[in-house]
């Protein structure tokens, strides 16, 4: 039987093909089932949708613009490039869209304490922000290594009233922060809601995060129709866990649009220092879902590496794994070095300092656009701004600030 849509997942068991599922300890299962129930009720409740939309408009500042990157287009000499300006959202990235949705769910479920994991700090800042807005207690788990390389975001979280708990076990980055958040969750099931920052984790998280982030793609459709009178020929977004990418891609999955997800190749796919779980990993089970993961031959999870803390995760959301297997989305990888060059080029040609995560998508645009015709319309998700990364970039370029 051929599928006539790519947009109907997950199934009742939370699966996208073989991916997804609910691989969590029994202590969490009743809570996961409650969350699913609350989510099903909320998504069909017009009042919930209206409150979400109003907050996105007046608190986040949506819709974010769809911007024609004129100088980059003329510099590359091929496809017509548009940026979806998610970096202009309140808190500087797409992460806030999801946090607004999840904190509304938390409130609906009567939870009063919020926990989150963060890598680059963007999700931590977004979570701390909505907690301040809704008057909820906030604890953010962050790897010690990431606390070191993302100091400005750590300070932001503290200003917003959140407690940042350093995670010292394992590789001290995003995956370990997620382990620690799950340990906290299991010990505080009564009052605590876990705001997962990406479209991964046990069902229904991948679905609900995707749906909250789909505002990106839904707006893009409308905006490109207004500007060009037709849908784009291609979409490009970076993929760590993959929430900004699935948010842009999902509304276009059934259209005649080429879609590219850009993973972090770190020092290169031929080294052991990268974060490309689709191009360099295989299916396994971690953090509540089956998905592509970086691991050794015994099934032990390996540390990921990327210059971008937000992509430094050895897994990926399960829907991406499925879209990869059914070949609806093409996943490619960009090295630290290529991302750094793109970071600089975007800053110099467009007057926009992108997040290092988004710079991976830009680097692929730089490769792809020159090979395409001038009437090819390409939309790239500029998922976050780069202020947080200036110390990392300065150090990579050998400059002192």
């Amino acid at each position, binding site marked *: 039987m051929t599928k006539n849509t790519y947009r109907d997942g997950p199934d009742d068991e939370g699966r996208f093909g073989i991916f997804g599922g*609910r691989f969590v300890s*029994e202590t*969490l299962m*009743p809570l996961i089932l409650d969350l699913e129930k609350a989510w099903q009720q909320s998504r069909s409740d017009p009042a919930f949708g209206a409150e979400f939309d109003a907050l996105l408009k007046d608190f986040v500042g949506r819709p974010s613009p769809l911007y024609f990157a004129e100088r980059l287009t003329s510099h590359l000499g091929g496809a017509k490039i548009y940026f979806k300006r998610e970096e202009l959202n309140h808190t500087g990235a797409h992460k806030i869209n999801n946090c607004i949705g999840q904190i509304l769910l938390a409130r609906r479920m009567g939870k009063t304490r919020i926990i989150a994991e963060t890598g680059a700090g963007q999700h931590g800042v977004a979570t701390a922000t909505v907690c301040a807005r809704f008057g909820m207690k906030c604890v953010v788990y962050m790897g010690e290594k990431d606390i070191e390389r993302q100091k400005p975001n750590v300070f932001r979280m503290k200003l917003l009233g959140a407690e940042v708990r350093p995670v010292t076990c394992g590789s001290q980055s995003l995956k370990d922060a997620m382990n620690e958040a799950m340990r906290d969750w299991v010990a505080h099931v009564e009052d605590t809601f876990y705001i997962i920052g990406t479209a991964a984790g046990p069902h229904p998280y991948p679905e609900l995060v995707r749906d909250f982030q789909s505002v990106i793609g839904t707006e893009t459709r409308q905006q490109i129709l207004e500007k060009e009178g037709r849908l784009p020929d291609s979409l490009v977004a970076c993929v760590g866990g993959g929430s900004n990418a699935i948010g842009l891609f999902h509304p276009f999955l059934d259209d005649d649009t080429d879609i590219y997800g850009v993973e972090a190749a770190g020092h290169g796919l031929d080294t052991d220092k990268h974060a490309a779980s689709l191009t360099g990993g295989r299916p396994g089970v971690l953090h509540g879902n089956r998905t592509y993961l970086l691991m050794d031959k015994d099934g*032990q*999870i390996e540390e990921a590496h990327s210059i971008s803390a937000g992509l430094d995760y050895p897994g990926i959301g399960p829907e991406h794994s499925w879209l990869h297997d059914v070949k609806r989305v093409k996943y490619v990888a960009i090295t630290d070095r290529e991302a750094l060059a793109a970071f600089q080029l975007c800053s110099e040609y467009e007057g926009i300092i992108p997040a290092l995560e988004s710079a991976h998508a830009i680097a692929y645009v730089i490769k792809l656009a020159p090979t395409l015709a001038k009437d090819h319309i390409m939309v790239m998700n500029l998922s976050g701004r780069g202020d947080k990364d200036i110390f990392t970039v300065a150090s990579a370029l050998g400059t002192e600030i």
Partner: protein
Amino acid sequence: MALDRIEQKFAALKEEGRAALVTFTTAGDPDYDTALGILRGLPAAGADIIELGMPFSDPMADGPAIQAASIRALRGGMTVRRTLQMVRDFRTQDQTTPIILMGYYNPLYIYGVDDFLADALEAGVDGLIIVDLPPEEDNELALPAKEVGMGCIHLATPTTDEGRLNHILKNASGFLYYVSIAGITGTAEPDLGPVKAAIDMIRRQTALPVAVGFGIKSPENVRAFAEIADAVVVGSAIVNIIGDNIDQEGLANPELGSRVLDFVATLGLRVNKI
């Protein structure tokens, strides 16, 4: 048959009128030979059932003690294959003490579920506790395990209500493991009252023996919980002794094995049901 060994053990303990002491150690912690030595000494020290942890890089349900044990074992080169070899080595001297492997799903999934079940049965494993496989995922391992006669121990927790318990019991075998606290291993100490109420609820729905674990650290705790359960699990308290008896290079103190077994002996003596 794997399940037989578990059933025979609980039947024998019932004759004796006492609960089982279940010990947890991690395979390969701090090294293969020391861990095997401890394993071989456990039955004589008072362990009635042995839980052997399969180390995993991301032990999400475990507290600091067992996390550290996992890291030590993995650094020492422990794998699923070597864990099964350790069981095989144990079985050359002991054919009656049930061995339950406890761990996380990914290493088994990567090994291949059918291959793993066949190899584990052949090695002498009697049951499995896989923390990140709730009954919603029974198709993954519990059902294939049932088909080949491998025990699949399910967990019930303080968040389990009667309706859900029914669901959990559907494919449970061997015994039911009651997780005494909402939390991770080796942290908070459980209160007797709520645990007793939960066990009463469980006994109304199943004839399976009930084990209690998480946070049980001392001989006094063991004795108290042995009054209300069919088995009492001690893990982190044992694992902590291993952690305290290795040097900075991770090498085992020569006394490590005997210190662990001496501690287990203080627990075992007191597991008596009145």
